[in-house]
């Protein structure tokens, strides 16, 4: 695409499940600091795309370069997976306190002691949940839990954050407040992000570019404005029109 320092370059990503084509993406690039939204009807392959990029799913074929370095998605991806992280629709918190949850990724990387506490406190602050530090994860509302999941992700200072429908489980008010905090944090840390979402407002608010998938194939790609002006696919028209 543009000669920007590419954070991510994907070529020929192909995933098949049970004989059926799930994802067939010839090319995708992501620039640094860019937030890409991936939209499309159900079953379009959005989650599969994120899982592949996250190193959590081994595609049938595809080449990935992360900041210029080739990554083998079928081999041991631990080192690669430590450079990025993923947040799911379900916060998937552990059965312990909020602080312990946020600390998990840091402990995995061998960080401990004072440095651990410092980074945990910082992450809690960034998502405005310092007051929930000692609370058990079982005693949180949906919005609070998703904040903890985000704090846990951002505490790792990842180069790329992947988010699969992170607002779905939230009510509209919680969603609105969280999106602002998320946007702020993405900007603050200069983190690139790929988000899937059904929510037009959030896409407009957060995304630099949008990729539209249908039945595993890309059908449109461009900035939010470009998509709003010219829809190549009925889904896009419906998404931005209504």
């Amino acid at each position, binding site marked *: 695409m543009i000669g920007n320092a590419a954070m991510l370059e994907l070529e020929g990503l192909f995933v098949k499940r049970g004989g059926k084509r799930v994802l067939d993406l010839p090319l995708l690039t992501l620039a640094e600091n860019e937030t890409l939204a991936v939209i499309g009807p159900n079953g379009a392959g959005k989650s599969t795309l994120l*899982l592949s990029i*996250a*190193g*959590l799913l081994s595609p049938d074929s595809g080449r990935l370069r992360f900041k210029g370095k080739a990554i083998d998605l079928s081999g041991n991806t*631990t080192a690669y*997976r*430590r450079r990025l*992280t*993923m*947040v*799911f629709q*379900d916060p*998937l918190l*552990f*059965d*312990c*306190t909020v602080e*312990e949850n946020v600390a*998990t*990724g840091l402990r*995995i*990387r061998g960080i401990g002691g004072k440095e651990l506490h410092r980074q945990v406190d910082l992450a809690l602050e960034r998502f405005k949940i310092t007051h929930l530090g000692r609370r058990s994860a079982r005693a949180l509302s949906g919005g609070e839990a998703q904040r903890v999941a985000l704090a*846990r*992700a951002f505490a*790792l200072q990842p180069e790329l954050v*992947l988010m699969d429908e992170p607002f779905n489980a939230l009510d509209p008010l919680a969603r609105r407040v969280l999106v602002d905090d998320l946007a702020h944090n993405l900007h603050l840390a200069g983190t690139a992000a790929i988000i899937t979402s059904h929510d037009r407002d959030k896409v407009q608010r957060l995304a630099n570019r949008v990729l539209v998938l249908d039945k595993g194939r890309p059908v449109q790609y461009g900035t939010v404005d470009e998509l709003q002006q010219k829809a190549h696919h009925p889904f896009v028209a419906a998404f931005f029109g209504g």
Partner: protein
Amino acid sequence: MELLFDGIATAWRLLISLDREVLSITLLSLKVSALATLISMLIGVLGGTAIALSRFPGKRLVVSLVNTGMGVPPVVAGLFVTIMLWRSGPFGQFEILYTPTAIVIAQTFIATPLVMGISVAAIQNLPPALRLQILALGASRLQMVWLLLLEARLPLMAAIMAGFGGVVSEVGASMMVGGNIKGYTRVLTTATVMESGRGNFDTALALGLILLVLSFGVNYLLTVIQQRQRPR
């Protein structure tokens, strides 16, 4: 009723006076069952986790076998181990029959399916996406398994307690492979049966009560660990 009070009085007397023989029998019960539980925990938890997390042809059959193993009568396990350890058996040359080692082996056979079966269910009960989330936080496969075990600690601890409870109270297999030899393989359960057969019902009751106290002590310890908050 009087017999029950006699039993309690005798138990108290035996414990307070630190009766050498009773102490050694109690200690042996604890050692043997603790070791068997430890081994079955390693095999059961790790094996159960491996089964729960993998996909392979015949998985359902394997899980069924494990679950069936939970219901095997302990005395049958004892018979099987006896046949293996007989002089004429495949492992006769090691002369393990009628030693505490034999009891540990038999009790491990009894406890392992139990611990394994519950572990499989405990791991399978975790949200499937949790595995992905842990990996997405940068965990290696080993770290992932550890974090899953931590997350399932409540049912896993229950499995271990069930394993221990099952073997410390077991008598048939322990009698068969151990021989209830005085000072060597006599444990609380086999001693209780023997004293009963001799007509010393108060002693038998006392030994039974001591076993209950021992069992309670161990389970209390394990429960405290189970209910603890995750360490900082």
